């Protein structure tokens, strides 16, 4: 079975080629069918692979030699193990639902653009599958770059809007900065270990010095900050909202941003060996989580709130990775995929009903008009707020418990962030769905529940968001309840051997849970109470204004990086390019023209002058040979 692993990325690739090449011929229904069908086929193969892996059949499937020179051999190989098969399920499963949803959400597009959309979407999934399946860092890097490219294409999908193009460009450039770190890490690995295959690198890891491992892991982490939107490279993710809403769901939930988590979870042994890197990962994650959560408190765009909540949740995952709770981080990736995809698709349903209105101040009272969207969105909010027994509770609690064991301060900040998460999510929920409708009468007239192709994915995701956490019930509630940890143990075994993770005793764990859940409940009660009756419609002032303007980080980057670079570009353009290179190139052309005009005079047509020149030449040669002979 594992020999058929190549089918998993092959289907989306075929879907991409068919939809992309035949975009002018295929009808919209055919395009939607091919696009979604390709992912469904991958999903089915992934399920079979998963069952295989569960039965203990793991391994590396080598397809062909990709790069071979000197002593370095990089095969094109796929890694089939617990971690990758789990990610395959998330990517293809949630990806399929998003594709299905897109067939209805994008129905206004003209057929060629509709097909373009689906081909990009399929390419996106293909790249992500390549990233997850790669059995060495180079294959992973190919997928890594592919996701970056596809995010650029999809964020700028409506390319006639210049602002969207700028957002796409921003995402691409920020990702490239991170990619450079990843690339350097690969080169460093090749120089130090001589191989990039996961199995060999991890086997040789104990021979490396701590300093080397620290450098490699920090470089890898730079790559992760770009792809997974951590400080300082997180600003592209909220801007990525420029793309169609299902794309946001795909980028934020199933693919792309989880790439950094996956990469660190895959390289867990390296990180465990480098405590400095682990602390850096944890602190960056924590700071990102807090910063993004504070920004989300004051955003009024429904998608922006969700975007910052994604950044914040990703910060949590990095905190988990930094605290050594690799299972917890992967668990949170999974539950986050469910509820964040749900929330984004729910937001898309709202936007669809409101005719592309995204400002929550103009919504309100949508509960009546969009019953299915309302219920599913509410479930998603509860899940992300971390209320038991919804999925977010289990994964978040596991990360917080690990943070508590590592450093109490991590835990305190993490819990406060969790409270803020609950607060802003329910502020969003209450402002959007509760109270009175505040839009125009025309919008109210058009309000409608979305078609089945959009509500069915919502319902499925809602079920997953509720129940998805039950595969990781902590020891305190149920003995051997943490099925996921048991499942992933082979991947993280080496790390656990190196560094024992102490589980907190049961009373402490109950206390931790009680604090975080209590805080979340208080935040929810306060938010619902406050915003359902009297939503804050005014522009924020004071500290709120700073938050609404995202701590002015974009402006800061603009001032210290973008503007000087633009200035430098202008200087180079005017001085080096125009008066330097252009002058040289034009000068060569002018010189040749002038020279040939002068030389042309020699061709007079007078035989006598030719003969004179000939004789003059002969005399010169005759004289010269006297000097040259010696």
């Amino acid at each position, binding site marked *: 079975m594992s020999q058929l692993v190549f089918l998993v990325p092959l289907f989306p690739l075929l879907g991409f080629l068919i939809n992309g090449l035949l975009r002018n011929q295929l009808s919209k229904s055919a395009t939607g069918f091919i696009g979604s069908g390709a992912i469904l086929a991958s999903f089915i193969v992934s399920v079979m692979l998963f069952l295989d892996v569960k039965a203990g059949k793991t391994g590396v499937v080598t397809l062909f030699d990709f790069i071979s020179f000197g002593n370095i051999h990089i095969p094109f190989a796929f890694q089939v193990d617990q971690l990758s098969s789990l990610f395959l399920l998330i990517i293809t499963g949630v990806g399929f639902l998003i594709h299905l949803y897109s067939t209805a959400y994008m129905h206004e597009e003209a057929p060629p653009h509709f097909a373009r959309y689906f081909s990009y979407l399929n390419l996106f999934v293909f790249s992500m599958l390549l990233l997850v399946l790669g059995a060495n860092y180079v294959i992973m890097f190919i997928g890594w770059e592919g996701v970056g490219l596809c995010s650029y294409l999809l964020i700028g999908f409506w390319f006639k809007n210049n602002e969207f193009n700028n957002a796409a460009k921003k995402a691409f450039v920020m990702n490239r900065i991170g990619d450079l770190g990843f690339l350097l890490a690969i080169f460093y690995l090749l120089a130090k270990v001589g191989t990039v295959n996961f199995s060999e690198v991890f086997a040789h890891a104990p021979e490396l010095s701590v300093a080397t491992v620290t450098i490699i892991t920090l470089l890898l982490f730079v790559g992760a900050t770009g792809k997974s939107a951590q400080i300082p490279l997180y600003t592209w993710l909220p801007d990525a909202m420029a793309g169609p809403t299902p794309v946001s769901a795909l980028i934020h939930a199933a693919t792309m941003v989880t790439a950094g988590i996956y990469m660190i979870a895959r390289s867990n042994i390296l990180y465990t060996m480098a405590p400095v890197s682990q602390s850096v990962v944890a602190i960056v994650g924590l700071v990102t989580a807090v910063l993004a959560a504070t920004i989300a408190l004051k955003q009024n765009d429904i998608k922006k709130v969700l975007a910052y909540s994604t950044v914040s949740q990703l910060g949590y995952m990095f905190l988990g990775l930094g605290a050594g709770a690799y299972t917890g981080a992967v668990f949170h990736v999974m539950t986050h995929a469910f509820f964040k995809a749900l929330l984004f698709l729910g937001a898309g349903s709202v936007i669809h009903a409101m005719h592309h209105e995204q400002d929550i101040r103009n919504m309100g009272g949508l509960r009546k008009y969009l019953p299915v969207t309302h219920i599913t969105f509410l479930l998603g909010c509860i899940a992300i707020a971390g209320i038991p027994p919804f999925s977010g509770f289990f994964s978040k609690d596991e990360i917080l418990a690990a943070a508590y064991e590592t450093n109490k301060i991590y835990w305190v900040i993490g819990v406060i962030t969790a409270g803020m998460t609950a607060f802003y999510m329910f502020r969003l929920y209450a402002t959007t769905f509760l109270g009175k409708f505040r839009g125009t009468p025309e919008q109210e007239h058009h309000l409608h529940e979305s078609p089945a192709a959009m509500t069915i994915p919502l319902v499925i995701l809602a079920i997953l968001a509720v129940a998805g956490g039950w595969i990781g019930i902590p020891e305190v509630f149920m003995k051997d309840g943490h099925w996921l940890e048991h499942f992933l143990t082979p991947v993280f075994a080496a790390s656990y051997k190196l560094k024992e993770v102490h589980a907190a005793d049961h009373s402490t764990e109950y206390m931790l849970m009680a604090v975080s859940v209590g805080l979340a409940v208080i935040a929810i009660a306060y938010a619902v109470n406050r915003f359902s009756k009297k939503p804050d419609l005014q522009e924020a002032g004071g500290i709120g204004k700073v938050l609404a303007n995202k701590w002015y980080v974009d402006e800061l980057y603009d001032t210290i990086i973008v503007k000087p670079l633009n200035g430098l570009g202008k200087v180079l353009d005017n001085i080096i390019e125009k008066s330097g290179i252009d002058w040289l190139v034009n000068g060569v052309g002018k010189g040749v023209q002038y020279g040939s005009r002068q030389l042309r005079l020699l*061709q*007079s*047509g*007078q*035989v*006598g002058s030719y*003969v*004179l020149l000939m*004789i003059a030449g002969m005399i010169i040669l005759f004289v010269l040979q006297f000097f040259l002979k010696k």
Partner: protein
Amino acid sequence: MPVNYYIFVSIALFCIGVIGVLTRRNAIIVFMCIELMLNAVNLLLVAFSKTHQVVNTVTGANPGIDAQIFVFFIMVVAAAEVSVGLAIIVMMYRNTHSVDINFLNRLKH
């Protein structure tokens, strides 16, 4: 007689030829000057062949005779060339009613 005298005569003839070609505009005179240069070379060939004949008999070869036969070839070729050249000049005169070479600058175009 030393070979130097022949060389001086030959050089003088050659230079007269060259100067004639360069300065005169009449095609026939230019042509005659070319013949002059040709014959200057012929004279030199014959002179050298006579000079070196004695020295080279030791080896059994007779290079002097070779050079003199070579001169005959040159004369034959020159005769053929003269007939062609004169024919060109005749054609030139028919077309332009002149044998002035400066008048013929069509090579320019």
